[in-house]
């Protein structure tokens, strides 16, 4: 075992790869991944279906062994330690509750396997039942409780033995919308209360943003970006992240010579705009300008000529707190999605077919290489 203790790091992945199959039919489910997950952190693996989230989680849980690379838990190499020796527990996507045991027996299973005393198990089970508010169901069979309750039993079962890390694979996907929202909050507060590192897997970007301290965005077995929800949403590292996390408009642009205002971009249909960027943009280079729908302002076309995009409204959809518009740009560069918060007294003044102008404040936009 290689000792390599870094304070604050719970899980460290070093150049981990996982390839399924052999010969011709190999699938590189995880490509060389290096990642630190901190103690007491709510960490989310976010990505579309098939991008390798489950595989990454199973590597950490010990259900798969990495093809190459090392996995460290508190500085100890655990890549070849079987699951029953890892202080890491999992909440499975389908809950995987033992159907031949009661709720209480399910929750106490891990402690029983750890040969804790009867009294300790009973006390801990009670504590966990209270934590997930299921005291009244302790004697029920798992088939006799609802999906949301099963979810909480699975959670209590995984937390009962106080693991160092808790893994949750798409744990909320099977729940209906309201229950999911509720469980999101509950999970978040459980994590804060227990201080256990949570590694949460989801394909739902909204869920990832709401719950996480940090998010890793994955695409085809590779990490695209790791950062806080704020960073991932507002400063996406590339087009994939910008597109996957939240809804986004991409505008075509070309680099100009920078002047006193900073990086200048020639935006199709508008002209020169100053947009703050991290890296310099070479003059003439093709770039994408990323603008979130809520950062666009839509108004009936006025005669002011200056820097604005114009187009005609294709669809208007009322979504409760906001109204979404799609606007076909008159410069022919495609559709824009615009989101506008509703106020109760306001009548929708823009209808399908209207000519509109769309504006944005340059510093809400983001420049990505084209």
């Amino acid at each position, binding site marked *: 075992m290689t000792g390599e203790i870094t304070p604050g790091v719970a899980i460290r992945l070093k150049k981990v790869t996982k390839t399924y199959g052999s010969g011709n039919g190999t699938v590189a489910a995880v490509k060389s991944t290096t990642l630190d997950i901190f103690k007491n952190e709510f960490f989310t693996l976010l990505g579309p279906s098939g991008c390798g989230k489950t595989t990454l989680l199973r590597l950490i*849980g*010990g*259900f798969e062994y990495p093809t190459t690379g090392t996995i460290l838990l508190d500085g100890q190499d655990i890549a070849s330690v*079987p*699951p*029953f*020796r890892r202080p*890491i*527990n*999992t909440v*499975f996507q*389908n809950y*995987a*509750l*033992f*159907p*031949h*045991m*009661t709720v209480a*027996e399910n929750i106490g*299973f*891990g402690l029983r*396997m*750890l040969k804790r005393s009867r009294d300790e198990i009973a006390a801990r089970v009670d504590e966990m039942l209270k934590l997930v508010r299921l005291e009244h169901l302790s004697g029920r069979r798992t088939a006799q409780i609802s999906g949301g309750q099963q979810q909480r039993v699975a959670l209590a*079962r*995984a937390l009962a*033995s106080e693991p160092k890390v808790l893994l949750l694979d798409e744990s909320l996907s099977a729940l209906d919308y309201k229950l999911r929202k509720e469980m999101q909050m509950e999970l978040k507060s459980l994590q804060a209360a227990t201080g256990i590192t949570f590694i949460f897997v989801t394909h739902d970007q909204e869920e990832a943003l709401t719950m996480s301290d940090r998010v890793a965005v994955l695409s085809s077995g590779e990490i695209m970006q790791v950062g806080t929800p704020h960073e991932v949403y507002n400063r996406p590292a590339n087009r994939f992240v910008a597109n996957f996390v939240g809804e986004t408009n991409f505008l075509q642009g070309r680099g100009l010579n920078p002047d006193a205002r900073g990086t200048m971009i020639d935006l199709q249909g508008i002209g020169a705009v100053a947009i703050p960027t991290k890296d310099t943009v070479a003059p003439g280079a093709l770039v994408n300008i990323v603008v979130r729908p809520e950062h666009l302002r839509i108004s009936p076309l006025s005669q002011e000529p200056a820097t604005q995009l114009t187009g005609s409204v294709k669809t208007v959809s009322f979504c409760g707190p906001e109204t979404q518009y799609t606007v076909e740009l008159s410069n022919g560069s495609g559709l824009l999605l615009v989101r506008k918060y509703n106020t109760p007294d306001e009548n929708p003044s823009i209808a399908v077919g209207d000519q509109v102008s769309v504006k944005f404040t340059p510093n809400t936009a983001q420049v990505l290489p084209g």
Partner: protein
Amino acid sequence: MASLESTRLKTESRTRWLLISPAMLVVIIGAIAPLLVIVIFSFLTPGPTGGVNFTPSFDAWTRVLFDRDLFDDTLTLSGTNLEILLRSLTLSLATTFLCLLVGFPTAYFIATRNPLNREVWLLLVTVPFWTNLLIRTFAIQDLIRNEGIINTLLLKAGLISAPIQILFTNFAICLGLVYVYLPLMILPVYASLERLDRNLLEAASDLYARPFKVLWEVIVPLSKPGIIAGSILVFIPSIGTYVTPILLGGGRNLMIGNYIELQFGQGRDWPFGSAISLTLMGIVMVALLIYIRHGDTRGHEHG
């Protein structure tokens, strides 16, 4: 309205009776009627050349457990009958246990192959059924007799200096029974293992269960329906078996099936044969009840 509803129900129930009547007829003619005949026979006296005399008597039942002294009519516990009953019970229980011991791992092995290979393995399990039982039993006889392959090999290898007597022992009967009834254990156990959610095994392992604990705490309890079905399927035919004790037990180690045959054949004592048959049925039923009841409570407390 109400009367319409009740007429509809009446027609419905009449149709239902009509539909199940063929099945009922088969059950009555095939199972209940013969059973009644046997029950009646067991309370009569034997006829001179087989058959029965219609004189009511408890004699046959008394003789299941007791020997009547020829001179003074006193009753003593019957050594032979008890021995045969006990041997039948022990051998069939041992057979069931051994079938489970061999069958469970086999079924687990098959259930964990990929789906295509599974079908091949299942087919292989049923292959012995394609050959007649007598031929298979003679084949075993040939394997285990003193000049047979097993003894010859052991002698040649110098592991033994004289052939081991396997044929015509209780062990030989048990071996033959296990061989014959093993598939009846493997198939139902396989069926319940195959339905087992693999996620549960991972969940157990995730919660610190070592492989043996995963087996004992999750796999075995969840495949209990298959284990119970398999045990019943093996136990019932092996306790009443007829051919195997004759060919492998050499007629010296009778089982209850042979004893019954003897009463209806050479013994010409149909009432006694009927009484032992019913005793056998009773034993099977009691054994099943205990087994299923016990299996159930075990499941509840162990959870």
